């Protein structure tokens, strides 16, 4: 799809959906490679399953709706959705759960609302939440990064686990799986242990979990690339991360024994990925400049609130979906002034 603007005095931009989505995929490559480095083949296999099912589901629905299949598939938006979903999923999730999340994201959250450009919610995050709410056991079964465990699962083992849903022969889930840093922090805090004690565990690095913090850095690199290429604006990521750091910093300053250092919140879980790649979804996010600042900051705030007092260890998906719901209202109250007019542009 080309954004062709008719009538002569306008210059039409060279931006197309395919190009934008292609750049997003390119920006995800460093983070994905980092996932591969730390978690082995699991994320790559998930990526394959999610992409294949998302593209197939998109083609099937487009066919049912009587739309041109090729034109829409080539815009790569289904691939981006699948990729974001796959990066959020635990590395050894059973294949059918990955496929179900990806089909739900495309069919129910995207196409039933009218396809690309019409979805009120971020499809990848809605798919993730469907899985997290429906399958809490498998969705919280992460691997330890291999800098901690010292050995990575082979390709054959990963395939076996994902497609059979059972741990490799002679091993148990407890032996190969591990909690995420956020999960661990939460469990230990609930047992009244203090941050200083919790961080003695080998799972912890300089800021967040070992391995995890580096994945966050590589996502950050991709995100900065997107801002440089003007694919996304700076407002949503900056305000989201600032909001998260501010509230986390406030609580840390009040009681550093039971609230982790703000950098922990940034570099554990999905905060960086969410800030640059998920909250910035141009369809479901706020669109006015002031609105984007509010939208991002509230996501950051909600992430902290849900991580600290909510029922689930990570919160980016819930925070983004909640703010997706609020985005139209935020846009309504933050209309920019029309040039040459006094006051708000209500027209």
């Amino acid at each position, binding site marked *: 799809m080309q954004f062709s603007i008719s009538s002569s005095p306008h210059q039409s931009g060279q931006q197309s959906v395919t190009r934008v989505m292609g750049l997003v995929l390119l920006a995800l490559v460093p983070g994905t490679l980092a996932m591969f480095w730390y978690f082995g083949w699991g994320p790559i296999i998930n990526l394959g399953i999610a992409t294949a099912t998302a593209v197939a589901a998109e083609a099937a629905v487009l066919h049912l709706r009587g739309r041109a299949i090729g034109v829409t598939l080539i815009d790569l938006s289904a691939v981006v959705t699948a990729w974001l979903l796959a990066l959020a999923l635990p590395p050894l999730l059973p294949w059918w759960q990955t496929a*179900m999340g990806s089909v739900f994201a495309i069919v*129910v959250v995207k196409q039933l609302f009218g396809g690309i450009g019409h979805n009120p919610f971020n499809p990848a995050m809605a798919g993730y939440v*469907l899985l997290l*709410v*429906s*399958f*809490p056991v498998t969705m919280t079964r992460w691997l330890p990064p291999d800098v901690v465990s010292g050995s990575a699962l082979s390709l054959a083992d990963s395939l076996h686990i994902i497609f059979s849903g059972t741990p490799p022969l002679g091993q148990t889930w407890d032996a190969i799986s591990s909690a995420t840093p956020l999960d661990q922090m939460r469990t230990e805090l609930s047992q009244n242990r203090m941050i200083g004690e919790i961080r003695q565990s080998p799972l912890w690095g300089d800021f967040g979990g070992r391995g995890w913090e580096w994945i966050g850095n590589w996502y950050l690199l991709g995100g900065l690339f997107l801002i440089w290429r003007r694919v996304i604006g700076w407002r949503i990521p900056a305000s989201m991360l600032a909001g998260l750091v501010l509230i986390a910093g406030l609580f840390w300053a009040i009681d550093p024994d039971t609230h982790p250092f703000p950098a922990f919140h940034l570099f554990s879980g999905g905060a960086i990925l969410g800030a640059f790649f998920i909250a910035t979804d141009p369809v479901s996010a706020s669109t006015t400049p002031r609105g984007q600042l509010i939208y991002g900051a509230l996501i950051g705030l909600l992430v902290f609130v849900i991580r600290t007092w909510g029922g689930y260890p990570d919160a980016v998906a819930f925070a983004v979906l909640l703010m997706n719901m609020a985005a139209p209202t935020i846009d309504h109250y933050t209309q920019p002034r029309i040039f040459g007019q006094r006051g708000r542009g209500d027209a």
Partner: protein
Amino acid sequence: MTDGYRKIVLDGLWHNNQALVALLGLCPLLAVSNTLINGLGLGLATTLVLVMSNVSVSMIRNWVRPEIRLPVFVLIIASFVTMVELVMNAYFHGLYKVLGIFIPLIVTNCTIIGRAEAFASRNPIPRALVDGLAIGVGSTLALVVLGGSRELIGQGTLFDGAHLMFGEIARGWRWGIGEDYPGILLAILPPGAFIGLGMLIALKNIIDKRLSTRQPASAAGTEPVTA
């Protein structure tokens, strides 16, 4: 005359189905439809109240002044709901405990006051009776289908808890896909109710569309289905 009744029944069951077309009484519909039996129980209780209230409202329709009709309707409905609640508490205590607050809340079900106002207060007793029955069964069917599909997807069973309604003999009715079916919890949680209801409405609209293209001549079945 029989044509008139035929239309009342068809409207209640399908063309003006209160859950799928009028979208009335959604709060109990969404909250209680997590298993087939719960849906059936609440559906039958609602139907009972609906029939009795329709008949009573139709009986007094010529004596109640229009200014006070709504409070009178609400009093009548509340009395019947209290009766149904006490009867359920006595004879279906298990089901009564499962359905909980939603039995007293039948009073506020807009389907019932809606039929009292829109139909029973303008029609003779036999017609009001048939209308109450048809509307009630229509809503019950929607509740049962939604409850059954949510139960099936969410926990892989059907007729779970049937003994609450049909006595100990019904314990064996429970049917399950199998022990290793990993329930998709979302279907049982509130979002599953909204998604499921949306799917049911879409399904009904598809069926209506198919029917109307098959027989474009008969106008009877092609009333607009949007509420």
